């Protein structure tokens, strides 16, 4: 099983996640697609760690998982705050800061 397969699969998942981030309007789904992209990156990191026979890349992936968890918590906190203040949960409607 060559490493190329894993890296190409991670590119596929990354592209699908990017498509979702660009097209969906619900911030919840945008966050989910960001998770997908981060996990695609993790897969590439772990594939390269295996390819080089060196576990440093796995530590990198672990830190990415921590950062992803933080991003989720803050993002969901923002969504709950928007809901409480009766701002529509819609990425297109929240455009007050647009230049």
């Amino acid at each position, binding site marked *: *099983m060559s*490493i*190329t*397969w*894993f*890296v*190409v*699969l991670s*590119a*596929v*998942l*990354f*592209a*699908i*996640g990017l*498509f979702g981030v*660009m*097209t*969906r*309007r*619900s911030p*919840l*789904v945008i*966050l*989910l*697609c960001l*998770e*997908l992209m981060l996990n695609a990156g*993790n897969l590439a990191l*772990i*594939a*390269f*760690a*295996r*390819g*080089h*026979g*060196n*576990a*440093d890349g*796995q*530590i990198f992936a*672990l830190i990415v*998982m*921590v950062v*992803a*968890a*933080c991003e*989720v*918590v*803050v993002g*969901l*906190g923002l*969504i709950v705050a928007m*809901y*409480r*203040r*009766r701002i529509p*949960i819609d990425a*297109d409607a929240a455009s007050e800061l647009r230049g």
Partner: protein
Amino acid sequence: MAEVLFFLAAALAIATALAIVLVQNPFYSVLALILNLIALAILFLLLNAEFLAAAQVVVYAGAVMVLYIFVTAYVGGSDQPVIPEGGVLRTIAPFFAAAIFIELSIAIVGSSLTMLDSSGGEISAGFGSPAQIGELLLSRFLVPFEAASYLLLITAVGAIVLAQRRRGLEEAEL
């Protein structure tokens, strides 16, 4: 055996990734992401990353996704058109995603890394085991480890501040 497992897990990962993007109800998107994370954990196991596969299932698919499900249930996932009209961004999105994929594939396949064509370098017996990861985290990568713990602390405080009720503001807006 490894090949069969890889193609099964890869097919599941791509199918659930498409489901996340293309399903209307956000609740089903969250459930699809859980399956996607489990498929990725199988791929991590194929790459000898035992500890990360376990962490992926327990922490990610377990804990983080519970948070998602609660918030989706709280906010109430409203059905929305998958690809709403309007915006140059939405029109070019499929082309942009395809372009990124083709570009990445050219970079991967066209690179002269001989490592990519092999099934991986020499590894020692405990590669990717909790013992090895823990030893690395507490020796060579102590600073990133501490930074990650501070980041988690700051995030926990920040999330509480963001999501707490602010009485004055809410009543003023009602």
